[in-house]
């Protein structure tokens, strides 16, 4: 039986291979989300730069009205979510690479994710205030 032989040689539980999660216990999920948010940010980032450039000489009321437009508010929230998600994932990799003391690593990782969520919520809340208050 070649299947049984393979398992004996491999000495790994077949379930480990079937799950395909590897030593990270989360498989390629982090990698994939980093790429998907990156792809989203190619479009949303260019849109954000163009929006900011179009508001260069604008006064407060004009800028606020522009962000309040439904499509702009929607794309801005999408941009913010993708940006903070991508930033947190990227900083996580940098921290995991350079912080070698486990407790420091965990503290910094938790701090980064707290700040990313806080920043994202603050910015999205601001966009909702701009979009929903006349």
């Amino acid at each position, binding site marked *: 039986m070649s299947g049984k032989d393979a398992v004996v040689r491999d000495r790994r539980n077949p379930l480990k291979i079937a799950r395909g999660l590897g030593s990270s216990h989360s498989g390629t999920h982090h990698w994939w989300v980093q790429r998907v948010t990156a792809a989203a940010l190619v479009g949303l*980032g260019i849109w954000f730069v163009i929006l900011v450039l179009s508001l260069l000489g604008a006064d*407060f009321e004009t*800028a606020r009205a522009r962000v309040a437009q439904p499509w702009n508010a929607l794309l801005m929230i999408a941009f913010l979510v993708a940006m903070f998600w991508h930033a947190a994932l990227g900083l996580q990799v940098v921290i995991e690479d350079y912080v070698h003391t486990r407790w420091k690593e965990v503290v910094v990782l938790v701090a980064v994710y707290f700040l990313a969520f806080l920043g994202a919520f603050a910015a999205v809340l601001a966009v909702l205030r701009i979009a929903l208050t006349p």
Partner: protein
Amino acid sequence: MASTSRPTSPNIQVYHWYANMVASILHRATGVALAVGTVVVVCGLVKLAGGQQGFDEFHSLVGSPIGMVLMLGWSWALFYHLCNGIRHLIQDGGAGYQIPQIVRSSWLAAIGSVVLTVVVWIYVLSAGGGA
């Protein structure tokens, strides 16, 4: 780092600098810089939601000489991370792994980011000089 008696990797000074090595370092550095720059995006939106006075303060801070230098740096960081990020996405698709292609695309991302930064800042300075 865990203390071991095993030999460690040589210091970075002994390596020859290749374009793709610089691209990798710059991608990470600009990524960290942009993560810090998210503070400016959040501040701008919160002030825009808050009212005229706070927004004007934010506006004059960004438009100040130091603010403009920071915005110049962040705009280049954004364009570099964007150009090199597109390069990485193409590579993730399995393309462009020949060594001459890797060197060429590294240079292309760097040149592209500088061109985009220059074009944007010519527009910014011609359209009102930091307004």
